[in-house]
């Protein structure tokens, strides 16, 4: 097991290296760079100015050199300077991370705490009206684009309370904290809770027919105990997988939500940075996201072993 861990860690590093190469070169494949964009914004192109600027930013050097500069800096913790704001990239990125992390965490929590129980109920009551109702409700989560859901929430709040929750980085009251983080998180979570619920349902249906469920019933275990202790624990693997994936893709979902709710998190920031071809920001941010994703996958893998004793990771 220890050997396995060491190897996993090593492989995570390999993955991260792979990601760094991919993102680095993908960005370079995309036509246009910060200089083009700056000039586009200024509405003119002057070849001399352009060359100067490229030199200043070091993007005239061979790619390999640029890569080496970046990655060696990254390893030293030197993230370079944003091309756009000319501030240290780390200083730009860091304050935004907790915002998105909070949102993502809440969204996942919401998705799991709604999706799993509803999935269980709907599986247990398969074929009843309740099952139909829950499925239809969860589907509405899947069928509404999240920007519409977000706008709907905002519009409704304006129409009903004459108020709109605008992001406040330092919420003063509990209500503001809810408005700042929980509502957007719920909008994101609602969608992924639908997926969680459906996977839970399907997985539970599979498990509920197993003999050991009958055994549990035969012991006189209550429905709740049967469904949650016996069945759910057996059915949870695919659910964990999906939640893990959702966690990774949450960044994508958050882009739109951060835009609609105007939250200055990393997701929207990343999009802006790509638009500006702000390599130092994009590269480092993607790497940080990658670290999170890779760790999330690792945790998911470890959770498999926790939930299913038959899965053992040996060397």
């Amino acid at each position, binding site marked *: 097991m*220890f050997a396995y861990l060491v190897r996993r860690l090593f492989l995570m590093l390999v993955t991260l290296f792979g990601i760094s190469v991919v993102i680095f070169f993908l960005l370079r494949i995309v036509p246009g760079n910060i200089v083009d964009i700056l000039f586009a914004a200024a509405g003119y192109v002057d070849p001399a100015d352009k060359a100067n600027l490229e030199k200043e930013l070091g993007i005239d050097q061979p790619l390999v050199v640029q890569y080496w500069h970046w990655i060696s800096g990254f390893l030293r913790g030197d993230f370079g300077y944003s091309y756009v704001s000319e501030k240290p990239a780390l200083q730009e990125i860091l304050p935004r991370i907790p915002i998105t992390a909070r949102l993502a965490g809440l969204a996942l929590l919401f998705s799991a705490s709604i999706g799993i129980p509803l999935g269980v109920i709907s599986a247990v009551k398969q074929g009843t009206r309740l099952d139909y109702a829950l499925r239809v409700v969860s589907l509405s989560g899947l069928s509404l684009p999240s920007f519409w859901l977000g706008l709907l929430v905002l519009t409704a709040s304006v129409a009903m309370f004459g108020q709109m929750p605008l992001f406040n980085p330092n919420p003063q009251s509990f209500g503001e904290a809810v408005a700042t983080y929980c509502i957007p998180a719920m909008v994101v979570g609602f969608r992924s809770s639908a997926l969680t619920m459906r996977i839970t349902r399907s997985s539970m249906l599979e498990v509920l027919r197993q003999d050991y469920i009958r055994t549990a019933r035969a012991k006189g275990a209550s429905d709740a105990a049967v469904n949650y202790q016996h069945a759910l624990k057996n059915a949870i693997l695919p659910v964990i997988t999906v939640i893990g994936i959702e966690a990774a893709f949450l960044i994508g979902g958050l882009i739109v939500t951060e835009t609609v709710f105007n939250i200055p998190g990393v997701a929207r920031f990343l999009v802006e940075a790509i638009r500006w071809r702000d390599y130092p920001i994009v590269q480092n941010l993607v790497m940080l996201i990658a670290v999170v994703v890779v760790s999330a996958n690792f945790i998911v893998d470890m959770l498999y072993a926790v939930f299913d004793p038959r899965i053992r990771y040996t060397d």
Partner: protein
Amino acid sequence: MTEALLEVTDLRKHYPVRAGVLRRQVGTVHAVDGVSFTVGVGETLGLVGESGCGKSTVARSVLRLVEPTSGQIRLEGEDITHLSKAALRPHRRSMQIVFQDPFASLNPRMTAGDIVGEPLAVHGLASGKELEARTAKLFEQVGLRPDQMRNFPHQFSGGQRQRICIARALALGPRLIVCDEPVSALDVSIQAQVINLLIDLQRQHGFSYLFIAHDLAVVAHISHRVAVMYLGRIVEIAAKDELFRNPRHPYTQALLASVPIANPLARKLAPLVDGDVPSPVNPPSGCAFHTRCRFAMDRCRTERPALLDAGDGHQVACLLNDGTGRGQ
């Protein structure tokens, strides 16, 4: 029993025992601990023993479904212990297994007909109508109705499932069938049918069986020779009549004495051996059976008896009477 179809030499299979958060290995299960035997062409070797003594592990090792820790398995003279998966595949036609747990060994999403017909399809022996006909034939052979071919495993009773497994094993006409308790879930009349079928097939085609069962009566009927296992080792092996008439190992004797007799007037349900079954993780020193043996001597606690010939090819691993076991 002229030539050996299967030859197992000093087979060992150890499973690691893990514990703790980091799942460090804290011990080893000596599931099979040095087992040697041969099965001749057209011969049935019965394998009995207490539960958990490693019979299934032997069975699965023979088919290379678990990788043995050490030892050698020769099929038709060829060493298959280290063959690659691909190289092994052609040999699979000549050896088949009937699993102990019939339900779990049936794919819940395939119909019984598909399950039984699949080996034929896989090895390209039949297809289309012919496949169906041959599958139907197999169903009839094991006492199932062909109209059950389109049912799913969960729709069968325990005994019926076991017969599906037998039919699947028979499909390829293998030379060796490892039967891991193939009739344990069958009622006696069908058990009789199946055993008769196995016997008939053996007579017609010279099949060999490694036949694992708890029911000594069944073993007695089908086997030519019988091996008795205890805690990962063979403690006694002999020709059937010799073994039943003249069991030498105290465990064998206890086994024979424990067989329930189908006569309500002759009740004798007092267990002959008592005491805890020792664990394969920490097998007792010396003779593994000494903890439950009524005749255990001091020597038995320290000295491990070897499997010795006590005459007429009757081998026994017991220290009593100069290593020939307890006479009758």
